[in-house]
C-alpha cells in the first residue's frame, strides 16, 4: 500500500490504491479515471464496418492461423532459468480470472458457506521486466522508492482475434508469438519466482486451503443519492415531511469556519473503484475446468475480471513451499486429481452428514 506523498508546495499527488476511510477526507483526490495511463498504446481497433469480401476474410484467417499455430505450452523441463528455491519471502506471480458467480457449499459440520467461483482464464506470461529496469519506470519508482526493487511479470489472459486490436497493441505480443490477449496485468515477483515468456498459468498455481487476495473493480452503481452512497438515514416517510425523504439535510454549521468543508458527503458517482478482498480461503480447485472456489465474496459483478495473488496478510502466508514458480502438469502423462477439496468441506458425492 502506498502512503500519501506531500510535496513542499503542498500539491496532492494522486495515489494508486486508497484506504476507504481516508478517502472521505481527501475530496480533491481523483478516485477514478475513464482513460488508460498515457504510456498505454491504443488498444481497440478504431475502424468499423470494413467491407471485406468473404474470400479475403478467409485468407486473413488462414494467415492468422499460420502465424500462431506452432506455439506449444512450456513444460517444466523447458524452463530456461534454473529452478530456484522457494523461501518464505518469495513473491509468486498472480493469475487473471473471471468471477463467474456465487455457489453455496457446506462444511463438514453442516454450516453453509457462500463461495465465489473464479474461472482462471488462459493466462500466459508475456514478458518479464527485471528489477533494475522496473525501478526506473514511473510506477516502479513510486512503489520501490524506499525499498529494494522487485521484478514485474506481465501476464495476459483471454486470447482474441487480432482483428479487433490495433497494430501497436498486437506488437506487444510479437516477441512471444501468442495471439493478442484481451486483458493484461502486472504482477510484482521476486527474481527467484520468474517465469519465462509463454508459460501458461492455470488453477493449479494455487493450493487448496491457502489464502488469496482478490483485486477487482467494484460494482458500478452510477450516480447515487446520499442514502445509498453514504448510508444517511434521510427523513421521515410521513408525519408531514415536505419533500424530505432521501435528502442529506444540513451540510455545515453556521458560525465556525462558515463554509462547506472539503469531503462533505454528497450524492455522486458510486462504485467502479479498485478494491482488494484480502485473506480469502480457497476451498476447492477444479483442475479440469480451471476453476477456483474461494470462501467469501469478491469485488465486482458476475462475469467481471479479477486478479488473484497469494495473500499479503502475514499470519495467513505460506509455511510450506507452494508450486514454485508455478504449477506444471506431471511429465509422465498422469492426469492430476480433477477435483481437489479442502479437508473441512463436505464433498457432494459423499454421504449425508449424520450430526
Amino acid at each position, binding site marked *: 500500500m502506498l502512503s500519501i506523498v506531500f510535496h513542499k508546495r503542498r500539491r496532492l499527488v494522486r495515489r494508486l490504491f486508497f484506504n476507504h476511510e481516508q478517502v472521505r477526507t481527501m475530496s480533491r483526490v481523483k478516485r477514478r479515471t475513464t482513460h488508460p495511463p498515457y504510456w498505454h498504446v491504443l488498444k481497440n481497433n478504431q475502424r468499423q464496418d470494413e467491407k471485406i469480401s468473404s474470400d479475403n476474410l478467409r485468407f486473413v484467417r488462414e494467415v492468422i492461423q499460420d502465424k500462431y499455430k506452432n506455439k506449444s505450452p512450456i513444460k517444466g523441463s523447458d524452463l530456461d532459468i534454473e529452478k530456484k528455491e522457494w523461501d518464505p519471502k518469495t513473491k509468486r506471480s498472480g493469475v487473471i480470472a473471471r468471477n*463467474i458467480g456465487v455457489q453455496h457449499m*457446506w462444511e463438514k459440520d*453442516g454450516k453453509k458457506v457462500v463461495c465465489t467461483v473464479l474461472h482462471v482464464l488462459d493466462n500466459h506470461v508475456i514478458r518479464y521486466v527485471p528489477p533494475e529496469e522496473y525501478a526506473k519506470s514511473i510506477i516502479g519508482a513510486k512503489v520501490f522508492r524506499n525499498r529494494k526493487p522487485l521484478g514485474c511479470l506481465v501476464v495476459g489472459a483471454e486470447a482474441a482475434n487480432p482483428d479487433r486490436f490495433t497494430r501497436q497493441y498486437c506488437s506487444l505480443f510479437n516477441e512471444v508469438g501468442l495471439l493478442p490477449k484481451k486483458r493484461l496485468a502486472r504482477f510484482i515477483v521476486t527474481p527467484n519466482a520468474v517465469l519465462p515468456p509463454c508459460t501458461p498459468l492455470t488453477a493449479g498455481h494455487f493450493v487448496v486451503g491457502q489464502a488469496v487476495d482478490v483485486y477487482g473493480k467494484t460494482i458500478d452503481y452510477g450516480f447515487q443519492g446520499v442514502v445509498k452512497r453514504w448510508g444517511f438515514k434521510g427523513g421521515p416517510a410521513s408525519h408531514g415531511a415536505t419533500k424530505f425523504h432521501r435528502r442529506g439535510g444540513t451540510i455545515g454549521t453556521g458560525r465556525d469556519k462558515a463554509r462547506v468543508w472539503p469531503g462533505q458527503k454528497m450524492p455522486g458517482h458510486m462504485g467502479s473503484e479498485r478494491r482488494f478482498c484480502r485473506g480469502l480461503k480457497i476451498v476447492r480447485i477444479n483442475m479440469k475446468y480451471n476453476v477456483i472456489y474461494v470462501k467469501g465474496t469478491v469485488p465486482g459483478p458476475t462475469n467481471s475480471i479479477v486478479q488473484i495473488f497469494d495473500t499479503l496478510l502475514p499470519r495467513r502466508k505460506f509455511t510450506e513451499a507452494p508450486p514454485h514458480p508455478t504449477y506444471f502438469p506431471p511429465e509422465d502423462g498422469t492426469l492430476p486429481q480433477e477435483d481437489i477439496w479442502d479437508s473441512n468441506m463436505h464433498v457432494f458425492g459423499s454421504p449425508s452428514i449424520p450430526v
Partner: protein
Amino acid sequence: MRQLFANRTSSILLQEKCDEADEKSVSKQKPGDESGNTVVVAPPEFRFMYPEFLPDPAMERRNRLKEKLERIDMLQRRSVVEIPEFYTGSVMAVTVADANSPNKFARFVGICIQRGGSGLRAWFILRNVVDKQGVEILYEMYCPLIQKIEVLRLERRLDESLLYLRDALPEYSTFPLDMEPERRLNNSVVPINPLKVKLRPRPWLERWERQNLQGVEDLNLPQRFYDKAEKVAKPWEKYDLMLQYRKTIPAEEQEKIFSDVHSQLQQQEFKRKMRRRRGTDNEQ
C-alpha cells in the same frame, strides 16, 4: 421473490394433464440431426419435475460454465439422497440431522406451500399445525444435513403458492406427523386437487382479493375491496411477452440443460429401484 413458473405455464399444466395418455418419463427421440445420430431429449415434464436445474433468468448474472459445474454438483448430491419429484401442495416428510433432538434426527411432516431458488440454493417450505400452533420450516434441498425426503402424498393444487394457508382455517394445514406414504393409482399423471380453502375472518396477512387465487373459496368481502383491487390490478401483464420472456429460460436452452441431466437422473432412478427390489428380496 422470483416466481419460477410463469403465469402462462399454469394454464399449460392443466392442458398437459388432459394431453397425457402415455406413461410419463419416456424420453422422446428427436429426428436425427445432420450427422444422422438420434438425439435423446428429456420429456417436457422435466421443467416442472426438476425446476431447480434451470438457472436464474437474469442475464447479467448468467454464466454457462458455472451453471454446468453447479449441475454436476447437484447430480452428485442426488446420487446420495433421493430428492423426489414434488409440487406445491404435496405432503412431504423431511428427516434432518439435528444435534439438539433426542435421537439426533428430526422428522417433520408438512404440506409444501412454496418452492423456489435455483441450483444448489433451491428451497421449499413445509407447513403443518402442531399442538394448535402453525409451524413452517424452510428446507434447502441440497443441504447435506438432510437425510431423507419422502413424498407422502404427491399432488398439485390450483395455485403455485399456498401462502394463503396461513390465513385459512387450521384444518387445511394439519397433517398427522405419523402419516403413511400414499400409493398412487395412476402413475403417469399427477392429480390436481381442486380443493377450495375457507379463510378465517379478516384481518389477513396479505390482500388475497388482489392475487387472483383459484384455490380459495369466495372471500365475501365488501365491494370496495374488489373495486380497489381492480384499480390496482395490472391486466396488461398477461399480454406482455417480453416480461414473460425475461422471467423464463428459452425452450432451446431448457432442452439442452435437461438432455444433459436426463440420462444421469434416469440412471440414478434405476439404481434406486434395483436397490429397493434387492432390499425386498432379502427380506423375503
